């Protein structure tokens, strides 16, 4: 299995997707390579993920998950050498991909999935093509697929996802890229047969506390 690199604009749900994907493909390794923003990173759930068969490799030293270190762990080479299933969660924007150049000798040929959310200003679908140009030119990587993650947290409803999916399908076809997966909250009345591509159904958000839901009782 090729390593999967997850990229996209800030705040489109890359880490949540990478974490949910890892949970559904355990045992596997989730490389938390976000060295830009020290909040809401998969490494915060290192201990719990370990109980689920997901090993975190990150830039932290031991269990100090809140270190703000601009560094990557070389452990990633061992993971790739052993051929373990690996998903790499990068920081947002083209800058999140740049440091991967250090590992390009072993990452060549990886899947590179761009996560998009029609409700995030920097990820509106008319931005996908320029974003791909920018990301590829800065990283020497080639985007190989799109992950559809349109949501508005608790305000997400099925039409929101289905409408965005239809728009994205046209855009993906125009760009010659597959939609590799669509993220779907299990509470929504949506089913695999409504999508031409696989869907990733999740029960709860891993990187967001329950109290962050609505502001009213």
């Amino acid at each position, binding site marked *: 299995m090729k390593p999967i690199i997850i990229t996209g604009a800030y705040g489109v749900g890359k880490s949540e997707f990478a974490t949910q994907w890892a949970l559904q493909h355990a045992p596997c390794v989730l490389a938390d390579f976000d060295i830009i923003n020290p*909040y809401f990173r998969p490494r915060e759930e290192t201990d719990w993920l370990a109980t689920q068969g997901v090993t975190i490799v990150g830039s932290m030293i031991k269990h100090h998950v809140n270190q703000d270190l601009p560094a990557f762990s070389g452990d990633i080479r061992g993971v790739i050498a052993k051929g373990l299933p690996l998903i790499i969660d990068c920081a947002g924007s083209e800058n999140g991909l740049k440091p991967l150049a250090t590992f390009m000798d072993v990452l060549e040929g990886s899947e590179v999935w761009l996560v998009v959310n029609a*409700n995030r200003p920097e990820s509106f679908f008319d931005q996908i093509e320029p974003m791909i140009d920018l990301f590829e030119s800065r990283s020497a990587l080639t985007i190989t697929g799109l992950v559809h993650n349109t949501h508005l947290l608790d305000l997400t409803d099925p039409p929101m996802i289905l409408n965005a999916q239809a728009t994205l399908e046209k855009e993906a076809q125009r760009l010659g890229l597959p939609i590799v997966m669509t993220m779907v909250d299990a509470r929504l009345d949506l089913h695999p047969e409504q999508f031409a591509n696989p869907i990733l159904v999740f029960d709860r958000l891993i990187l967001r506390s329950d*109290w962050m839901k609505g502001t009213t009782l």
Partner: protein
Amino acid sequence: MAKILMKGNEAIAQAAVSAGCEAFFGYPITPQNELIEYMAKYLAKNNGVFVQAESELAAINMVYGAAGAGARVMTSSSSPGIALKQEGISYCAGAELPVVIVSVSRGGPGLGGILPSQADYNQATRGGGNGDYKVMVLAPNGVQEATELVRKAFELAEKYRNPVMVMADGIIGQMMEPVEINPEPLPPVDRPWAAEGQRGRAQRNVVNSMNLDAYKLEQHNRDLQAKYERMEREDVMYETVQTDDADVLLVAYGTPSRIVKSAIATLREQGIKAGLFRPKTLLPFPSKQLKAAAQGKQFVLVAELSLGQMLVDVKLAIEGTVPVHFYGRTGGVIFEPSEIVDAVKSHRKGD
């Protein structure tokens, strides 16, 4: 405008741009960097001025200069950075300049940590600058309210010719939420005091916080105090949730108030009637309203992401009429709703 998904720092910045902020001066610090980054990207596109200063001291003094010249101006920082800006904030208060300061606070003291905290309540409401001055402090509980209070901060700064601080904890800065930002710029206000050229006036305007005449300086201070009293009369903001039938009153502000709301729901399921009093203005503090809300309750529990700072204002407000207890976590640790539930139960008579 439809709701979109934004990170608190971005939404705060966009709210300022939409409100008509003309100039921003800042210096990077976690956890508010996206705010500065957003301003760098979008303020110039809206004919504004963005400068990344060489330090926090430089930034706040640029704010002083731009406000003195009549611009609608903002800066932002986080705890140690706000500490560095205190001298300049006192100067802005002394010179009666309308400026907006956003504080996205993190754990302290000193460099502390980069995770959310409310240990800068005293820093915001008491300040570290010199003199008898006050800064209005607004405390949102989420991303949507942060955008509304940033807009409100510009209005209040201009109403009172005074610095207004929007105090968000690191969670608000970093969390994503659906938002709808008011796109209408605030109307321009007359600034006949601004140092923007003589423009036919008999005397040129001088923006200054120094006055070597003791009697004049005393009068200036009395005028400032009258202004602060007016803030308390006219612009106190707070929210109450299920307080009327409550036996126990919880007091919290910012994102922790949402954790407390979750705890209240659990407590009520267990037959314990709890309610929330949430100050939205930390200065002026809603003292009278809190005292009234607390009357007849078994006790008050203050919950903060600090080891007890707003607690002092709560005790001052309640004047010993009701017992006041406290629960806090600090250093970047965020309490869970269950901790608040347990804290309430531990103080209940007979439980």
